[in-house]
C-alpha cells in the first residue's frame, strides 16, 4: 500500500515534468498542407519558418509574396510569422531552435553577425552570382564587415527635407533652402514665438538627425587607417554646432514645452502636418503618411541643404536598412537562401517596398513602375542614386556607439556638457571596444 503511493507520486511527478516539455513535439510538414496554394506541397516538402518584424498592412504585403513563393515552390514551403519582438530571435537562436529566415534592422547585422548569430552569405552569393554591385553601396555596407556579408538589405531609408509650401510662401520664400546658411535664415524667419518666448511655430526642430548633417559636413565616425573612432571629427562638430546654434536661439525650456504639446507622429496632428513645423527632415515613408492623414497639405520635398564649403557633398544622406538573414543553426540553409535570394530579386523587392512605402536597395529596382503610385517616390528614388549617401560604420559596437553619441548629443544641446567634453566622453567609452 505504502510502496504504491510512493510509486504514484513518482508517476505524477514525471507526468508533470514531461507534460511541461511536451508542447514542442515535432509536427513537421503537417501545418504547411493547410495553406491554400495552387500547387499542393510535395510530400517531402521542407517547411521554413520566416519571422518578420512587420505588422498589419505591411505584413499582409509580405504574406502575399510568401503565398506567391509557396505556390511556385511546392518543395520549399515558407510559413510567415509576424514577430515584432526582436528579442525572440535572440532567444530562439541561442536556444538552438531558430527560425529559418528572419528580418532585422541593418544596425544589428554586424553586431550579431560578428558574434556568430547570422550565417555569412558570401559562398551563396558567389555561387548564385548575385550582383552586389547592383545594391546601393551605403545600404549594402550596413550588412558587411571586412569582406563578409551577413544579410541582404531588402529595404532602405533615407531622409530629405520636407517643407510646407504655404508657410514658406507667406514668409516670402519661393523655394526650399539650398545651403546650410540659407537653412539657418529660413529657420529664423519661419519660427514664431510669443513675447514671453513661448513658441507657436518652429522653422525646423533643432535636435535634428546629427548623422545626416555630419555627412553633409563631410564628417566621418570612424577612421579606417588608424582604427580610431572619431566622434570628434570636424565634420561632426560642424553638424552639432549647427544644431546647437538653432537650439540656443530658443532654449531648452521653450523647446521642451513646445515639443510636449505636439501631436502624435502618426496622426493628423503630426507637427509638420499641422503647421507647427514649417520644415522637417524625415524619411521616404512620410509622403505616404501625409496622403493618409493630411491629404490637403501643400508640401515639397528637397535635398538636404549642403555646406557652401563642401559643394561636392550635395544630396547627402544617412542610410538605414531592413534586412533578411539566415540565423545560425538552421537545418536547411540552402532552402533558406533560395527564399532570401528570390525575395531580394528586383521584382519582389519592388513589390514589397512599394507596398511598404520604403526604398529599394537595388538600382535595378528603382525604375519599376510600381513606384509610380507611391507618393513622394519620384524625389526619393532620384535621391537614392546620390553618391553622397552614407551609413553609420558597421561594427560590433555600433549600437553602443550610437547610444553614447545620441546621449552626449542631447547633453551638448542642453548645455550640460561642452561639445569637446561630450565628444571626448564618447571616444573614451567606445575606443576600447574596437577590437575586431
Amino acid at each position, binding site marked *: 500500500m*505504502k510502496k504504491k*503511493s*510512493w510509486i504514484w*507520486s*513518482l508517476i505524477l*511527478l514525471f507526468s*508533470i*515534468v514531461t507534460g511541461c516539455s511536451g508542447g514542442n513535439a515535432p509536427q513537421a510538414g503537417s501545418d504547411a498542407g493547410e495553406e491554400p496554394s495552387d500547387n499542393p506541397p510535395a510530400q517531402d516538402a521542407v517547411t521554413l519558418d520566416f519571422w518578420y*518584424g512587420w505588422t498589419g498592412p505591411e505584413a499582409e504585403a509580405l504574406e502575399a509574396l510568401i503565398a506567391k513563393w509557396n505556390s511556385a515552390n511546392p518543395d520549399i514551403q515558407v510559413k510567415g510569422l509576424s514577430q*515584432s519582438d*526582436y*528579442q525572440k530571435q*535572440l532567444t530562439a*537562436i*541561442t536556444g538552438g531552435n531558430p527560425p529559418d529566415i528572419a528580418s532585422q*534592422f541593418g*544596425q*544589428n547585422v554586424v*553586431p*550579431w553577425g560578428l*558574434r*556568430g*548569430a547570422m550565417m555569412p552569405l558570401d559562398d551563396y552569393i558567389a555561387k548564385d552570382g548575385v550582383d552586389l554591385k547592383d545594391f546601393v553601396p551605403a545600404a549594402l555596407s550596413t550588412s558587411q564587415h571586412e569582406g563578409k556579408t551577413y544579410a541582404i538589405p531588402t529595404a532602405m531609408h533615407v531622409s530629405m527635407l520636407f517643407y510646407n509650401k504655404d508657410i514658406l510662401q507667406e514668409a516670402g520664400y519661393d523655394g526650399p533652402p539650398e545651403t546650410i546658411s540659407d537653412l539657418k535664415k529660413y529657420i529664423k524667419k519661419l519660427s514664431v514665438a510669443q513675447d514671453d518666448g513661448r513658441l507657436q511655430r518652429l522653422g525646423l526642430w533643432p535636435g535634428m538627425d546629427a548623422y545626416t548633417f555630419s555627412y553633409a559636413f563631410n564628417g566621418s565616425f570612424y577612421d579606417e587607417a588608424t582604427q580610431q573612432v572619431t566622434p570628434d571629427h570636424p565634420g561632426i562638430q560642424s553638424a552639432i554646432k549647427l544644431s546647437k546654434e538653432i537650439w540656443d536661439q530658443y532654449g*531648452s*525650456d521653450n523647446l*521642451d*514645452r513646445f*515639443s*510636449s*504639446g505636439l501631436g502624435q507622429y502618426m496622426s493628423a496632428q503630426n507637427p509638420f502636418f499641422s503647421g507647427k513645423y514649417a520644415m522637417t527632415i524625415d524619411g521616404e515613408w512620410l509622403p505616404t503618411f501625409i496622403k493618409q492623414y493630411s491629404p490637403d497639405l501643400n508640401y515639397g520635398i528637397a535635398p538636404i541643404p549642403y555646406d557652401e564649403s563642401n559643394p561636392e557633398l550635395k544630396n547627402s544622406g544617412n542610410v538605414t536598412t531592413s534586412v533578411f538573414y539566415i540565423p*545560425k543553426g538552421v537545418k536547411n540553409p540552402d532552402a533558406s537562401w533560395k527564399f532570401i535570394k528570390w525575395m531580394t530579386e528586383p521584382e519582389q523587392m519592388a513589390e514589397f517596398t512599394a507596398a511598404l512605402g520604403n526604398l529599394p536597395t537595388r538600382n535595378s529596382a528603382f525604375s519599376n513602375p510600381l513606384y509610380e503610385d507611391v507618393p513622394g517616390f519620384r524625389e526619393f528614388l532620384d535621391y537614392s542614386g546620390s553618391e553622397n549617401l552614407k551609413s553609420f560604420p558597421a561594427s560590433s*559596437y555600433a*549600437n*553602443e556607439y*550610437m*547610444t553614447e553619441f*545620441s*546621449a552626449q548629443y*542631447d*547633453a551638448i544641446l*542642453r548645455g*550640460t556638457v561642452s561639445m569637446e567634453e561630450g565628444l571626448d*566622453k564618447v571616444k573614451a*567609452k567606445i575606443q576600447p571596444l574596437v577590437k575586431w
Partner: protein
Amino acid sequence: MRVSTAANQRKPVSGWSKKERHYVYLGLAFASPWIIGFLAFTVYPFFGSLYLSLTEYDLFSPPQWVGLQNYEQILADDRFYKSLGNTFFMAFISVPITLAVSLLIAVMLNFKVKGINYYRTIFYLPSVIPIVASALLWTWILNPDFGLVNMALRTLGLTDPAWLLDPRYTKPSLILMSLWGSGAGALIFLAALQGVPRQYYEAAQVDGANWWYRFWKITVPALSPIILFQLIMGLIGAFQIFTESYILAGGKVDGSGSLGGPEQSLLFYAVNLYQEAFVFLKMGYASALAWILFIIVLLITFILLKTSGRWVYYGGE
C-alpha cells in the same frame, strides 16, 4: 546524502525509524515539483549569473573568463553612476513619500463615515490598472499644455513645468504617478489599522491625549512592523523600476536611440541593465550589474533590519 542518512541510522539519537524515513521521502517526493523548480529556475540561474558576471558572454559564442574585468569596467562607467543615482533618488525620496501618503490614506479610510466601502474601492482602483496603461494615461495628465495637472497649476498662478520632458521634472513626475497607485499600500495599512486594539485609544483618550498624540504614540508604533515590511518591499521595487521609464522615455522597437529620456534622467538601474544585456549583447557585464544591485539591496535590507529594533514594535514586547 545517502552516506549521511546511513550514518544517522546507526545513531539512536537522531535516528529515524523506517516509517519516519518513509514519510520524509514521501514528503520530499510531493514537494519535488517545487524543489526541482527552485533548483532549476532559482538556484541554477543565481549561481549561473555569478559565473557569467566573471566572463565575457554575447549569447552566441561560449563565455570567456575575464575575471573581475566586468566589475572594474562598471566602476569606471558613467552610465552606471548615472543610473544608480537616478535609482537612489526613487528609492530614498519616492518610497518614503509614497509610504507616508498611503498611511495617511489608510487612516482616512479607517474613519467611520457613510459609504466608506466606496471610498476604499475608489482609492484601490488605480492599483488594478496595468502599469503600461497608467503610464500612457499619465503622459496626458502631465502634458504641459493640455494636461490636467498644469491646467490646475495655471489656475493657481503657479509655474507649469514641462513634466516629462524637462530633466529636472521627469523623476518628480514618476513620484506623482506612483502616489496615484498608493491605494495598494493603503489597503495593507488599513488591514493592520483594524487590528490595533481599541482599548489603547480609549486609555489614551481617558488620559487626555489628542488626535496627533494618539497617531504618533499608538498608531505608528502599532503599525511599525507593517511599515518596515512595506518599506523593504518598496525599496526593492524601486531598485527594479523599469516599465515607467521604458514607456515614457521612448523604448523604440529597434532598440535604437537612447533609453532613459532627456539627459538620461530616467535611466534607472534596470533600464541600464536591460540595455547592456539585450541591446549591446553584453551578458557578462549585465550579470555583473545584477550582482552589484543584489549586493546593494542586500546591504540596505540588512541595515534596515538591524536598525529596525529601535523603531519597530512587535505585539507582546
